[in-house]
């Protein structure tokens, strides 16, 4: 699969075809090279290069002082990153899988998110917490959670979930440069999908993008669900229905302007996400669209999300995950008789 939102704009010299994992690797390398205060640490990120090889080669290139393994302690990793950020470093930490970020929850919610506010900006938490998340890879329990709601609900955090290698590269660079703490969610299913990456291109945090133009209804998604949405739009197009796809990319803050404009232009919306739907980012999107586009809506905003159950075991995940058919069913339910 190839992943891009648009044709790269700059010269061929800076453009490479990379997997999303490769794009993250490049972003880390370029950030390490650009700024001596950037440090990368976590479990197995050193000599092994991470269990997904995202940090491959970085320890060798930048040395063990800047790219290193820690003791196996996630609260420790994040808590130490807080202290490092207090002392002028820009830590980029990896938590190995979604569910293994939970031990760090107190540090994330009580300190990472609040230290800047607490100190009136004197101690900003300029740090990135990278979390491989999501399912669709046949992973066993605790390896496939979509945990973004926990972070997106927490004031003070910026939460990013790119769906293309370009966004992964550009938004990770922006995340590392951000004065604020960023939870950077990398969808595991996308790790090996390739796309062009222009290392000169900058993508700011907090901005959604229209990944496909369309006029009949708007699919709002992020992470791997963007691909499913794009596929659904392709199928729908063949059936004569024009679906717009918005990749929100930034889960917190949400880019209300882009989302609002998109939904207003079609008058119908389906929100797609892998996480259980209740009290989720998808719920927030549905609520906001309802609040901000009420007069424009021809039909209720539908959600196509994971069920409100723990993530499925490998052999059942295809039933759990939002798929093209389920999206199209939701689209079909959007009061088309009115037209």
């Amino acid at each position, binding site marked *: 699969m190839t992943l891009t939102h648009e044709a790269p704009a700059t010269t061929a010299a800076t453009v490479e075809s990379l997997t999303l994992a490769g794009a993250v690797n490049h972003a880390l390398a370029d950030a390490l090279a650009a700024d001596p205060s950037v440090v990368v640490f976590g479990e197995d990120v050193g000599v092994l290069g991470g269990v997904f090889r995202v940090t491959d080669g970085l320890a060798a290139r930048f040395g063990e002082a800047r790219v290193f393994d820690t003791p196996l302690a996630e609260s*420790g990793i994040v808590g130490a990153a807080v202290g490092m950020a207090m002392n002028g470093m820009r830590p980029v930490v990896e938590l190995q899988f979604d569910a293994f970020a939970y031990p760090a929850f107190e540090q994330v919610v009580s300190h990472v998110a609040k230290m800047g506010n607490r100190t009136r900006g004197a101690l900003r938490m300029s740090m990135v917490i990278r979390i491989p998340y999501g399912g669709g890879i046949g992973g066993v329990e*605790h390896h496939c959670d979509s945990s973004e709601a926990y972070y997106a609900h927490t004031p003070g955090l910026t939460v990013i979930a790119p769906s293309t290698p370009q966004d992964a590269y550009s938004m990770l660079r922006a995340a590392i440069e951000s004065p604020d703490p960023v939870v950077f969610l990398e969808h595991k299913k996308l790790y090996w999908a390739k796309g062009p990456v222009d290392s000169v291109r900058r993508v700011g945090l907090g901005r959604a993008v229209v990944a496909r133009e369309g006029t009949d209804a708007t699919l709002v998604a992020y992470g791997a669900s963007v691909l499913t949405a794009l596929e659904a739009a392709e199928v729908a197009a063949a059936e004569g229905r024009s679906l717009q796809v918005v990749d929100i990319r930034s889960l917190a803050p949400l880019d209300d302007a882009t989302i609002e404009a998109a939904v207003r232009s079609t008058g119908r919306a389906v929100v797609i996400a892998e996480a259980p739907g209740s009290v989720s980012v998808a719920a927030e999107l549905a609520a906001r669209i309802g609040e901000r586009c009420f007069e424009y809506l021809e039909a209720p905003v539908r959600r196509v999300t994971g069920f409100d159950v*723990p993530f*499925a075991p490998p052999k059942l995940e295809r039933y*759990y995950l939002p798929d093209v058919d389920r999206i199209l069913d939701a689209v079909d339910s959007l009061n088309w008789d009115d037209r």
Partner: protein
Amino acid sequence: MAHEDSELLPGETPVRFLDQDGRALDETRYPMPPLSELQAAYRALVVARRINEQCSALVRQGRLAVYPSSHGQEACEVAAALPLAERDWLFPTYRDAVAVIGRGVPPAEAMVLLQGDWHSGYDPREHGVAPQATPLATQLLHAAGFAHAAKLRGEDTVVVAMCGDGATSEGDFHEALNLAAVFGLAVVFLVQNNGFAISVPLSRQTAAASLAHKAIGYGMPGVRVDGNDAAALLAVMHAAVDRARAGGGPTLVEAHTYRIQAHTNADDDTRYRDRAEVQEWVARDPLIRLRSYLRVCDALSAAAEDEITAEAEAVAAELRDALQAEHVPDPEDLFRHVYAERTPRLEEQWAMLADELARDAESEHAESEHAEHEEAR
């Protein structure tokens, strides 16, 4: 240094009964277990090794999604399960499938997790085995709570809680050992120190002389034992279990061992360790060591060996057969156990999925009718 300190600190060398060639050493801290138990342990070791090999093969054949093998660590696995009574409980990790099987769980049920059918495949109550824990060190707290419940009811249940060297760095390790010590609970914490947490070596987990040195900080004894010496492990575990059963409280046992395979099949251990180091540990194989000893003691006849091998083969065959059959779990399972009673929301969601499945089945049916029709033409 206080008198009691020396009682809680581990000895300068790990407890060891057998040398690499299976010769008995001059170990005086514990009594050597009886030959009959060593024979039983040997049988269990051979079966455990065979299961490890079989499962690795099943991964290669795509029958198991993943298998974190305890190849090389089987003595720890066996010694975790053997000293327990039926009413006791074991709290294993993802790496401890053969210890789980050692408690009587049918091998195929122990593989349900790794096969991808469900998150756990056996009835914990039936076998006194908690589900294998994936989030590191979390199960140590469950073990403490379980033992606490037993203590409150005046039961003499003993709990063995397992974890790896890496897991000792987690906060839950600390909280569990401390809880168990403060409440004097009947938990034996067995740390399999295999030198690595995936790629991260022990030196990144601790600067202490040993992991067993942590015990004194909780006020419990810490013991180091050769993790490839089944006799030593059994002696130490029996003492710790007896102590716990008698109300003496928890013990921390650190077993020095080595994982011969990569972390899982998904791992590439050539990135982080020398082949020479692996070979050194292959030479310290716990099976061979115990076998040599039993042979020297004339406690393992060729016939017995054959019989044990046959038993191991039978277990492997059973496992193979069980996993050959393609089992497709029921999608409704997703909704069955989230709550004791399904919520209206889950009913709605299942209804939606059921409807999708019905439509899929219909269109498949239509397609196949169409295909038949085409064929017939």
